[in-house]
């Protein structure tokens, strides 16, 4: 186990290096003047840009630039560090009129909140559907599930989302897009509302505002339904095939032969083993949700990091977009590591191979 973890850990610095090189490479499509806005705060004044170019050596050889980009520049007199993505300074976002890191810090809790509430419906229901399809192999549920999984993979989330908006918002007026009703937005912005965790649903409960909590949930219903819908097809397919495979194993026959009830055979004997590939899928799904779901957040105007990245790139604000990509890359590398290690703990075959 230890060797597996060490081997897996050794991959991390390499991936980090690769991703920074990738993003730095994309940055090279900008000329030095544009790259200077990595460091110039707000609207650039007369010679600020030229000053930044000399200070950060933006026309130097590429490896020096890369190094400067990573660690920034320490002012020799004041000792203040400026720039340097390793220290969390991703530059200035023109479209957001604030540092990219602040923009991420403000948007990320919303994405996390959505992830928190979407995990249950997305994963648990998806798995349940897959188990049902496998247990009733070739039955009505299985056929319906098969059709659903083909339709689900062909029906893109933005078309589905727009249709949801058409029914539940334009026609019925049940679930609005956005994050909160305007009145509550004012309450949340005021001083009385204490941000304990920055997650809106949890904070509203801690502040004793059930009405805000319910309103926040109401705004998340459509994104959660859309996310569920797009992930169910995958969960269904993986769970179903893994479950079918397991049900064919001899130990399941043994369990049946010794007279266990069908419920025990399926849920106590077959399901735990069939869940192994599903566990990885679930892990990656959660990671994907945390990285921001670009299309779903955009369609429903949900202020998470996915929609922020989409807005920035639609307005060609490259510095902001690359900041988001870097952040996303960091989350993914760390989270994938966690998923892999957890998986190796659950399934000994992985770490021994």
């Amino acid at each position, binding site marked *: 186990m230890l060797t597996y973890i060490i081997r897996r850990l050794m991959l991390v610095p390499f991936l980090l290096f690769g991703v920074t090189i990738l993003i730095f490479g994309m940055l090279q499509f900008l000329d030095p003047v544009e790259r200077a806005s990595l460091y110039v705060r707000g609207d650039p004044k007369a010679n600020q840009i030229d000053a930044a170019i000399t200070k950060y050596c933006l026309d130097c050889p590429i490896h020096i630039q890369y190094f400067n980009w990573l660690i920034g520049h320490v002012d020799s007199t004041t000792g203040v560090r400026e720039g340097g993505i390793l220290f969390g300074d991703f530059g200035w976002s023109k479209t957001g009129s604030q540092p990219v890191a602040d923009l991420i810090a403000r948007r990320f809790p919303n994405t996390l909140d959505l992830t928190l509430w979407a995990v249950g419906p997305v994963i648990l229901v998806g798995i349940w559907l897959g188990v049902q399809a496998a247990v009733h192999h070739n039955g009505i549920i299985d056929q319906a599930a098969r059709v659903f999984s083909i339709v689900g993979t062909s029906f893109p989330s933005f078309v589905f989302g727009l249709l949801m908006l058409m029914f539940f918002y334009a026609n019925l007026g049940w679930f609005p897009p956005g994050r909160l009703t305007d009145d509550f937005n004012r309450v949340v912005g005021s001083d009385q509302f204490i941000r304990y965790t920055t997650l809106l649903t949890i904070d509203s409960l801690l502040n004793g505002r059930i009405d805000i909590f319910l309103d926040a949930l109401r705004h998340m219903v459509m994104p959660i339904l859309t996310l569920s819908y797009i992930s169910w097809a995958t969960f269904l397919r993986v769970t179903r095939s893994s479950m079918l495979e397991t049900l064919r194993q001899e130990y399941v026959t043994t369990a049946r032969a010794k007279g266990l009830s069908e419920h025990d055979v399926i849920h106590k004997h077959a399901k735990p083993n069939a869940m192994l590939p599903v566990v990885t899928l679930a892990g990656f799904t959660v990671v994907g949700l945390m990285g921001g779901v670009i299309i779903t957040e955009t369609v429903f105007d949900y202020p998470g990091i996915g929609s922020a990245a989409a807005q920035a790139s639609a307005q*060609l604000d490259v510095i902001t977009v690359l900041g*988001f990509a870097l952040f996303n890359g960091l989350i993914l590398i760390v989270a994938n590591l966690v998923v892999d290690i957890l998986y190796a703990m659950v399934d000994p075959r992985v770490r021994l191979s």
Partner: protein
Amino acid sequence: MTQVTTPSGNNELLGAAVAMRKISRLERFLGPENYRIVQGLFKTPASISGFTLIFFFILIAIAAPVLAPPVNPNDPYKIPRDGFKSQPREMGAEWTKNPPEIPFWYKAVTGNDEWVHLFGTAQGQYDIYYGVIWGTRTAFKTGLIVVLSTLLLGVLVGAVSAYYGGLIDNILMRIVDVLMVLPSLMATLILAAVLTPVIGRSTLPVMISLIVFGWMGYARIIRGDILSVKERDYVLAARVIGNKDSRILFRHIIPNAVFPTLVLASLAIGDVVLSFAALSFLGIGVDVGYADWGQVLAFARNWITSLDTYWFIIVWPGIALVLYVMGFNLLGDALRDVLDPRMRGKV
């Protein structure tokens, strides 16, 4: 030496069994394994309906100039506008300004002398019908170009990686790892945003991004297949008679390993078109008013509160996109069953 030893038992039956299996020319050309894949693709109702859908869209793409005549034949991918008002107009609204030529089938089918907005107009009076019809061509164009390029790149990298092995293999596969860290939509999104100011708004930035972040899957698959093919005796024989590396790789190894990758790639057109439409929907890549399904769908984003009235903005391009992708997915599903080793011998 020439004497053939016959198995004991009922030779007549054995002879009959052998004679029954005729080998068609196609099978001889493709080889038994690949022939089985092709055969499987034409068997199930799902794959046949997939083929039907794709065929239907090919017809629309070919007939686009007849179905929706362009106002400006030099720039047919620009959706014609009927004025500049922002309020969308309903289906069947009359075309007031600068209508395109009326095609020959139009009067016979509708009995109408005037060209109308068959699917209504979107914000800015863009004709939705035109966008849906010419969007089919955009879909095939982008899908084919991206798939062919990713395939070429993937096969090349995968083949070199598997054939030479060692350090080269290690380096190439680590590059693959790095490129796969970011989710594909995020990756294409940022690269397209970086490239758009450099090459301008067109289909190019998104296509290039889809290619750059799209080939890794093929490289991995072909690498695995080549690793097994390169151990075969005929490769050794080719080497023994003194062939160059490049000749062995391109004449002997790749042709024998490429077929499953080839089929998989051709079915990935659906996914590529979906990604392209998604980026277009987000406002990345092509200009406003380019005939592309995602672009037409994006027009609905400013009219979300009144989508009950303007449902046609999302329904028509939505149906086109869904059916197009479903055609390829139905085929892909059939293919997965055929390629699954556990299914071998059951088709």
